[in-house]
């Protein structure tokens, strides 16, 4: 009997630690990107505004990821020899896009518009966290429906609880 409890305990403990290993080191909140791009250096140290690269955020549902041309525009001159930047140059020479991994991913049945949120004066950081301090971009919000609704409620958004506002 004691042995059974012991085995059960071992099993449960290892199961939980397996799960914990997965979420803390293999999390999709912080996936490994093809190029180790650092928002801390760009947005933090150099103080480049978000909208300088994510140019569509004010105009469209999508914020937009900068084209390879945008990267190379600066990096033709700046730090050309750094190993990660030579990867960018490599993509540019082959005229291939960089296959970034999505960190903030909403399912197709959710309608989300960056334009609306930016125009309502919501700061990028309030959903994306302190990007200027992140070396590797990390998802800090759950992006679940409850999280959306909580914010809509606290901001008194008109039709903020209407199903059709997001599911249309």
């Amino acid at each position, binding site marked *: 009997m004691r*042995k059974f409890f*012991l*085995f059960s305990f*071992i*099993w*449960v*403990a*290892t*199961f*939980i*630690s*397996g*799960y*914990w*290993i*997965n*979420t803390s080191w*293999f999390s*999709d909140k912080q*996936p490994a990107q093809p190029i180790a791009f650092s928002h801390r250096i760009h947005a933090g140290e150099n103080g480049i505004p978000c909208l300088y690269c994510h140019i*569509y955020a004010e*105009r*469209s*549902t*999508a914020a*937009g*990821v*900068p*084209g*390879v*041309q*945008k990267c190379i525009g600066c990096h033709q001159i700046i730090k050309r020899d750094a190993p990660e930047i030579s990867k960018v140059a490599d*993509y*540019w020479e082959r*005229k*291939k*896009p*960089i*296959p*970034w*991994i*999505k960190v903030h*991913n909403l*399912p197709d049945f959710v309608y989300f*518009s960056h334009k609306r949120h930016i125009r309502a004066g919501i700061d990028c950081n309030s959903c994306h966290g302190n990007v200027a301090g992140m070396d590797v971009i990390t998802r800090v919000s759950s992006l679940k429906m409850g999280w959306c609704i909580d914010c809509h409620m606290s901001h008194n958004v008109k039709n903020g609880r209407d199903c059709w506002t997001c599911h249309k």
Partner: protein
Amino acid sequence: MLKRRDFLKALGLGGVGTGLGFMLGESIKTPATNLIPYVVPPEDIVPGVANWYSSLCTQCNAGCGIIVRVLEGRAKKIEGNPHHPVNQGRLCAMGQAGLQALYNPDRIKTPLIRKGSRQSEEFRAITWEEALSVLAENLMKLKIASNTEKLFLLSSVIRGHMGHLFETFMQNFGSPNYIQYDLFQHKELIFANKVSMGINILPYYDIGNTNLLLSFGADFLNTWLSPVNHSLGYGHMRQGRHGSRGRLVQIEPRLSLSGANADEWIPVRPGTEGILALGLAYTIIEEGYYKGQDINEWNKILSPYKPEMISELTNTDNERIRTLAREFASARPGLAIAGENAASYTDGVNHIIAVNILNHLADNIGKTGGVISNPEAPIKKTQSLKDIDALLRNARAGEVETLITYNTNPVFTLPHNSKIQEALENIPFVVSLSCFMDETTAHADLILPTHTSLEDWGDDITEPATGYNTATIMQPAVSPLYDSRNAGDILLSTAKRLGNRLQKNMPWDNFRDFFIESWKTIYEKQRHTYAGEPVFEDFWNKVLTQGGWWDQEKRTHQSIHFIKDNVKRFISSSPSLFQGNEDEFPFYLILYAHSGYYDGRHANLPWLQEMPDPMTSVVWGTWIEINPQTAGKMGIREGDLLLVESPYGKLHVPAYLYPGIRPDTVSIPIGQGHKTYGRYAGNRGSNPLDLLPGISRHETGTIPLNSTRVKITKSSEKGNLVKMEGITKEFDRQIVQTIPPYERRQN
């Protein structure tokens, strides 16, 4: 304490636990998706924001304007162009399905050349370079042998500049044989209007402002001429004018969608529509509604059409004819239209002319709410002097060496009995310019894939226009999906290869250059109509933005004159003749354009296959409509497979019991029964055109769809009839509230 064995067990269990815990974490994650940026972001594309391009709908020949919603270079949705005079922002189901032509998985993706014999239908992909040199070599051979007139070019009806380019190519090559062909070409209507009113282009039937519309077999809300415009007009006639609601009387043996919207349906005997129209005309004369000088002459011409004398022939009550005539003559304006179903007899022209006479005597011609004239087209109309019959005759006689077809499918839309397939077998070299592997293209030796209309340049001069000139532009909304080309580009590069006169007279690098140059001519000619655009570039930008050029201010006020002397020889007192004798083949057969497949060209678009037919709700198949009384007598139940035989052919179709058809008539929609037309259309349903004889109206080169009689026999099998509706009986559910005619008369 712990035994070695237990320790190992615990270790194993722990390993499995960790693994499963890890897997759980993995399984609740959303799978990683990539975020692919542009290498160089295009300036005119904002991801997530749609670009709308104005263009032209080519799904039927109405010439509606469309706007195409394009997101990141992909066409997502088609809507009607709100500024376009024809459809005013509306669009029909066929137009909506234009997207499925673009994204169709059965499109021809590269040039193909035949491998082996014509029967094998095996093709090999080749490059454009090879394909064009094969074509040029063949044409060069014709040139060297001075056989240039043995080149035939067969296209669909094209009213825009592409037709001019085809014409120029053929002229400079030295062949007079450019033919335009479609199943629904309205040749009878054009001919009849020319004879009776002296007009070369179709007039505008002003349904919106009429008080009483008599429709003789015109399914104007569904497929006839310009259904979207007619529907707008119909809405206006019914509800758009304060205090007056126009009436619609539909005169046809089979109740069409338009008939279902009518106040009254007169199920006239097939082939006597014109006679009924003349009976109405007679009454108008006799009862003094006509005030012209020539009343006595008309009286004499129309004397055989006294309602009492034609009542039995037309199977219509003579009192009803008289009251209808009175209502029509005093409607002011009333409007009578003769549609495809009345024109589809061997003497279809007579029926239309009879309806024109009726319009003339009730004084509806040239009046608002009647028949309104359209101005001459802003560009020269492409003259297709010959018709498809000429191609068949010449091919059989071995007078055709090379045939180029573009965007038309005569092997499907002509009856098997027209011997079109044999004719094609007799042509040594057939080239098809097409988006899809249809029946005609399957007979070709060289297949050159063309763009679909969402990838292409082009234009259309609307006919019938809405009282003023309308030219609609087609511009590429998306880049070509496959290695296809514009048909004009194909001819221009062929002209370059052939050199000499062709190259000299067709100097344009591509179709777009030719096209813009042609539009400069419209600009120069119509310059006085707009002050806003001082240079062509401004005009051109405006045209591309709004989707075309139209001039609402400039309506023609020229009146149309009825030419009495011309029409006399088209008045005959005998009903239309039918193929097959009445005893052996007891049923009249009516074939009509399906609201989704039209003449069969859209059977490869699954949205339209999926769309229930508005009258029967049948999807994905062919059916035969038969009156429940007749069916009861013959012991036919819904879905029974029937053998339909005419003197010329037979086919198996499932029965649909349809109360909206005369007991002596059966009806089958056109459009299914494709042999090779992609995965959605192939081997589905049957093609009723094969019940018909070959081309029998040689003066217009068309086939009368309704001039054949059939017999039907019940077979033991059950057909495959898929329909949306449950039960057609009312069972006092008050879904449709009706009163019998005698009660109405009492009130």
